[in-house]
């Protein structure tokens, strides 16, 4: 889907910045304070064209505030945000023309039907002409809601509303999409469908996607790179694979009959190739780097000397564990 040249110029698509510096969004030393509370603290990061970038963090970490500033809905206390080569504070309208947004609360007119919602969006974004209705139909078909086009949005399920919000965000063929918690409150089946749409946007249409999520599994499945923020600060920024590698290549879970002693935990931590050892509910979680079989054998021997082993499992580390190791706390609700 290629937008006409005239629209690119009119709506702020800066082909120069697109092809040369490859930066879709640049956040420079961004700070946002609400009175004495600092929601974002000197945050800097870059989102490249064509990537799916995840902003990850617990509730209240500053994700939505960041995204609100990036989309021009809120003013920063200090710092600068450049979106597709435009300063968001100076060229807000140019940025908005190139931005498709799915806010957390969807911002759909639930008292109106799906078609009317799409139609209003078309008018607000200047999508006119003979193909306007065809384009609306196309987007509703994409999210499999064309048959429900005359139904009031209030009768839709959470997943259907999210899909409609996504179709609406795509209607004006934006360069950049921002999705704030795109699968919040959505059932597993709808979540998978939404993930597929998002992946298709990148793979088939080359869209840049900035998303926030609380779900580590979602970030893992969708994102090329992840920024973890907590208390408004950037805690980590990398690809999901690199983040896992930093934590450890594999995690061994050993369920024991009783709690193991603290001396054993200290002993295990000293074994070469073991980066992290924790014990929760008689389950030992041991993060290991590389595939050192001797280390594996050694730790099993040591644990069995201290307690009866009930179960052993080996798996990849998940982002929950990474998040915990980086922030020292779990995801807050």
């Amino acid at each position, binding site marked *: 889907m290629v*937008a*006409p040249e*005239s*629209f690119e110029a*009119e*709506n702020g698509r800066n082909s120069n910045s697109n092809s040369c510096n490859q930066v879709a969004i640049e956040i420079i030393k961004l700070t946002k304070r609400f009175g004495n509370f600092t929601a974002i603290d000197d945050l800097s990061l870059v989102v490249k064209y064509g990537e799916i970038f995840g902003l990850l963090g617990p509730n209240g970490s500053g994700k*939505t*505030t960041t995204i*609100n500033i990036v*989309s*021009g*809905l*809120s*003013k920063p206390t200090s710092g600068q945000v450049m979106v597709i080569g435009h300063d968001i504070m100076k060229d*807000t*309208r*140019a940025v*908005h*023309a190139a*931005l498709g*947004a799915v*806010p*957390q*609360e*969807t*911002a*759909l*007119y*639930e*008292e*109106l039907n799906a078609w*009317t919602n799409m*139609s*209003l*969006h078309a*008018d*607000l*974004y*200047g*999508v*006119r*002409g003979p*193909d*306007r209705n*065809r*384009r609306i139909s196309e987007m509703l078909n994409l999210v499999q809601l064309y048959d429900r086009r005359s139904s*009031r949005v209030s009768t839709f399920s959470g997943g259907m509303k999210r899909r409609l919000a996504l179709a609406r965000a795509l209607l*004006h*063929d934006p360069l950049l999409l921002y999705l704030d918690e795109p699968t919040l409150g959505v059932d597993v089946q709808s979540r998978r469908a939404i993930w597929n749409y998002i992946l298709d946007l990148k793979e088939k249409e080359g869209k840049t996607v900035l998303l926030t999520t609380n779900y580590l599994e979602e970030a893992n499945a969708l994102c090329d790179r992840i920024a973890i923020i907590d208390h408004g600060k950037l805690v980590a920024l990398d690809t999901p694979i690199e983040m896992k590698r930093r934590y450890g290549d594999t995690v061994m879970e050993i369920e024991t009959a009783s709690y193991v002693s603290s001396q054993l935990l200290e002993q295990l931590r000293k074994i070469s190739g073991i980066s992290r050892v924790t014990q929760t509910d008689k389950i030992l979680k041991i993060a290991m780097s590389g595939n050192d079989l001797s280390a594996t054998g050694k730790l099993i021997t040591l644990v069995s000397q201290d307690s009866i082993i009930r179960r052993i499992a080996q798996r990849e580390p998940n982002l929950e564990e990474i998040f915990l190791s980086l922030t020292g706390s779990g995801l807050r609700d």
Partner: protein
Amino acid sequence: MHILKMSPAYRFISVIWAMALKDIKSTLTERAFMLTSIIIPINFLLLFLLFALTGGQAPTAVVLKDNGPYAQQLLSAMEHSHSFIIRQTTASDAQNLMQKGQIVAIVTVPANFDAALKHGSQIELPVVVNNLDVDFTNDIRRAVPLAITSFYADAFPNQVVVRAHEIDIYSQDTGYVQYLVVSLMVVSVMLGGLLQAGSNAAREYEKGTIKELMLAPANPWAIQVGKILGAVILNSLSVAVVVIVIVFLIGVWPMHWGELLGFVLLLMITFVAAGALIGTLIRRRQAVIPLSIGLSIPVFFISGAFGPAIWGDPITAAIAQLQPVYYGIAVFQHAFHNFTTTSTGPRVDAFILIGFAAVMVTVSAIALGRSRGRGVAH
């Protein structure tokens, strides 16, 4: 190619129309609220009308013990004094009505009334008053001597030395109710406009849909003007009902229909824009309703609702001139009765109202534009 390049003017107009249609459709889905915004202004009109119709006149029983021509003439003078609701009855029935609290006073015309008058003798006219409400009691105290004076002036014109000679400024007399309903119409337009537009604007924030508007590359002026247009169209329903009640039920016919329609439109724009501003600033529908009513009542009272504001206290009159209801009442009184109730006159008043409308539209559009910076997120 689904996106066409269009002129900024065309795009501006298309956004206005899209917003107006959207607000009309949204409001039509909330029928209970729509009915409320029509009923409240009409309720306001009827409430004050009833107050005016019943509150100004004291229910009074007249016991005629003499049925001679002078006694009848006194009764007629009382009936035409605009101070009493007369019930001619017997002495015992009058006592009963007084006991039940249904009348304020009993005026008894004695049996020798006509004869005594003919002989120039002194007559005692017993008046029994119910002092439950001192305001009514005082009305009776003032009105009975006035009615008697009026009776004397008609019955014995040669004996009454002082008699006011009226020169009419206007070609027609206008009753209290006829004057008041015009003022009530202004406040109904105000209340309807504030409620309709205030609720439409606040709903966007309550439901989170403001983000769709704030994220669009559309001019906030076009968005707000569209919302104002939608609310004006919706508000026309309640205004039409109010006009029908005033013209066809109460029988107050406008002298200048063209002026009336023009001023109604001008006032609707002013108050709808004010409502949009309130809704944008306070962002909660629950607060819009009491605030609209709370604003309308005091403004109504100080703006010359019962008589020209410039006849009243100079400080109150000066305050009244700072807001549009004062000029609204003035231009409506001109449209209905050809009255000039301000020192500035209807032409200048109309220009002042145009200024108010322009300021309200401008400020409400600026407020919407600034809400981007203030943050619309939860």
